[in-house]
């Protein structure tokens, strides 16, 4: 009686383990198929930067429209900075070609500067200043999209 | 005759299964713990009979693994709050068995089952202000 019970138990465990291994293999295979070039990796790692540029721009617009307080602009800029720093780090360490990663590094530097300027203008209550940074952020967004497109092209060009 | 003994046995085991893990309340229906274990009395030629119910963390741990029980008991000795590891209530003290609980003729507050409850009330709750609820005064 007792052995029967334990045999049944171990069989369940065995099949559970087999299922786990199969699953891990399947996941591994999927990841292997998705293995990317350094440029593609960098584009993916830079994704939050584009979203943060849009966030900062809109935060500036909302502040000028009296819809968010100064403290929100300040803390949003601080949060954005963390992710922008991460993207800078990724670009620094990336094995992508210099034509792809150096412009991104510069772009991140300019974005952080624009963020700081936005927070500074909001702190001083300087509406025209905030409007200028909003325009600056819109330009940075355009540069970021252009960078994404060119990095993609470079990667395709490199592959040929 | 043998058939009857077998029937008594299954009845008793059924009872044991039904009672194990049930909520235990004292004579004032204060919840005092659960039937963590049962002591069965084995009798020659007669079906076993429930001798007493057991309450205590060590009894529970014993059901998982004896080593866990030793570990839990080690902590009990070190903390010195609960005096006895296993609190036994004789089956004769059972007053009623309902689908929800089993009522025993003791006063929970004075039993080892309430050692921790008492200790926490006197050493922790007593030092926290505002321990009376607004609604309780109505």
């Amino acid at each position, binding site marked *: 009686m007792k052995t029967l019970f334990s045999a049944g138990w171990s069989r369940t465990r065995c099949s559970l383990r087999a299922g786990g291994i199969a699953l891990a293999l399947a996941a591994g295979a999927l990841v292997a198929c998705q293995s990317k070039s350094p440029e593609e990796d960098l584009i993916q790692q830079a994704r939050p930067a584009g*979203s943060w540029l849009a*966030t900062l721009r809109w935060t500036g617009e909302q502040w000028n429209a*009296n819809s968010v307080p100064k403290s929100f602009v300040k803390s949003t800029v601080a949060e954005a900075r963390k992710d922008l720093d991460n993207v800078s780090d990724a670009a620094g360490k990336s094995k992508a070609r210099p034509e792809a990663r150096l412009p991104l590094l510069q772009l991140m530097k300019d974005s952080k500067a624009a963020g700081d300027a936005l927070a500074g203008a909001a702190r001083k209550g300087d509406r025209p200043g905030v409007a200028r940074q909003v325009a600056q952020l819109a330009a940075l967004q355009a540069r970021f999209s252009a960078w994404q497109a060119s990095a993609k092209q470079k990667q395709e060009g490199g592959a040929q | 005759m043998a058939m009857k003994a077998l029937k008594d046995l299954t009845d008793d085991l059924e009872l044991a299964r039904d009672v194990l893990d049930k*909520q*235990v309340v004292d004579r004032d229906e204060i919840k005092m713990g*659960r039937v963590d274990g049962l002591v069965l009395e084995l009798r020659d030629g007669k079906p076993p009979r429930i001798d007493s119910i057991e309450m205590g963390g060590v009894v529970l741990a014993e059901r998982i693994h004896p080593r866990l029980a030793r570990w839990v008991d080690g902590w009990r000795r070190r903390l010195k709050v609960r005096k006895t590891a296993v609190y036994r209530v004789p089956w004769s003290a059972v007053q009623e068995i309902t*689908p929800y609980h089993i009522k025993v003729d003791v006063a929970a507050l004075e039993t080892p089952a309430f050692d921790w409850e008492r200790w926490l009330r006197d050493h922790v709750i007593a030092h926290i202000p505002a321990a009376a609820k607004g609604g309780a005064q109505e």
Partner: protein
Amino acid sequence: MNMKKAATLALGILTSVGGFFDVGNIATSTQAGAVYRLQLLWPLVFGTVLMIFLVEMSGRFAAATRQALPDAIRTHLGFTAWLFPFIILSLVHFLVLGAEIGGICFALHLITGLPVPFWALPVSVLLWLFLWRSTFGAIENSSSLLGLITLAFVVAAWKHHPPVGQILAGVVPTLPHHDPTRYWFMAVSLIGAAITPYVFYFYSSGAVEDEWDESYVGVNRAVSVIGMGFGSVIALAAIVVSAVVLAPRGIQVDDYHQAALVLTEAFPFWGFVLFAAAMGIACLGAAVEVSLSMAYTTAQTFGWNWGENLDPREDARFSLTYTGAILASALLILFGVDPLKLTLLTMAVNAAVLPFIAIPFLLLMNDRKLLGEHANGWLSNTVTVVTLALALVLAVVSIPLMIVGGS
């Protein structure tokens, strides 16, 4: 229907609106809308159907047997069978409570500008004091009425005139156009946010505290369908608002600051305050329920005296359980764990552990000796088993992929 039942019905619906919509919905709905617009409405609808059935079952069980779930599971399935699900459930309680406290702290951060960890201790002390001093009825009354502020999401969605055709299309599952790993992981998180296990334990223990009997079976059904349905509509509205407001601007929700902007377009000036208030109150209501659920589950598992209507002096172990849980969870926020990341992790864990939580529960619901005519019928069993299996497959496939694939 007498007055007491009518009041129970109204209150129950309000409470479950608050019980459904919490930090998990705010995080997952705004994220899904920002990235996939209206394509991910279906996991929420799917999760809501399962949630309605499970909540209805837990209330029916309490009404028919006058026993709360953890109590009955220990009694009927035994300590050894319950121990593992109980440990998992306690862990989930701890994470969810941390995420809810994080949500309250973030709402206060929005309004005051003070950093999130600063609020961890004041919030937990306030939450604790509320539980320590209040009776069960008072908790129900206050959290339910305040919870109505979350309807701001529905009003905002309405004001944006969303494309109805696309909304209906989003209710049908479709394959993603990009980032499949992220898509499926978000689908799992949305389901995890809809089915929050603490609700079953809280709701059935609450029904026992309110002394429900068999005559409440009908009220219970109405409460679960209407209450969970309403809650789900709010979460759906959050997806819609985020799809209309954030997605076109290219804003994704990698941080709660980005989610905080979803209402500003519909309500200039007030949108920001409304978001903070809705988030703070939804999370506070949920934090109250999670803390109590933790205490109910632990006390019932070990047979301690329990009840939110008793003085802490009469149920020291019960009261100190929620006290400890609140403190431990607040530490997560105090030490700077990111509230959004904590929430997303918790929602995925929620979906993954669902079977452990639901299987003991389903076994009990089919016990005719216990429930008699109120035992589960084929409809409840089929719907829960099928949806549970689907949720499990989704979770088991997408979570490892997300971990291995990164991003």
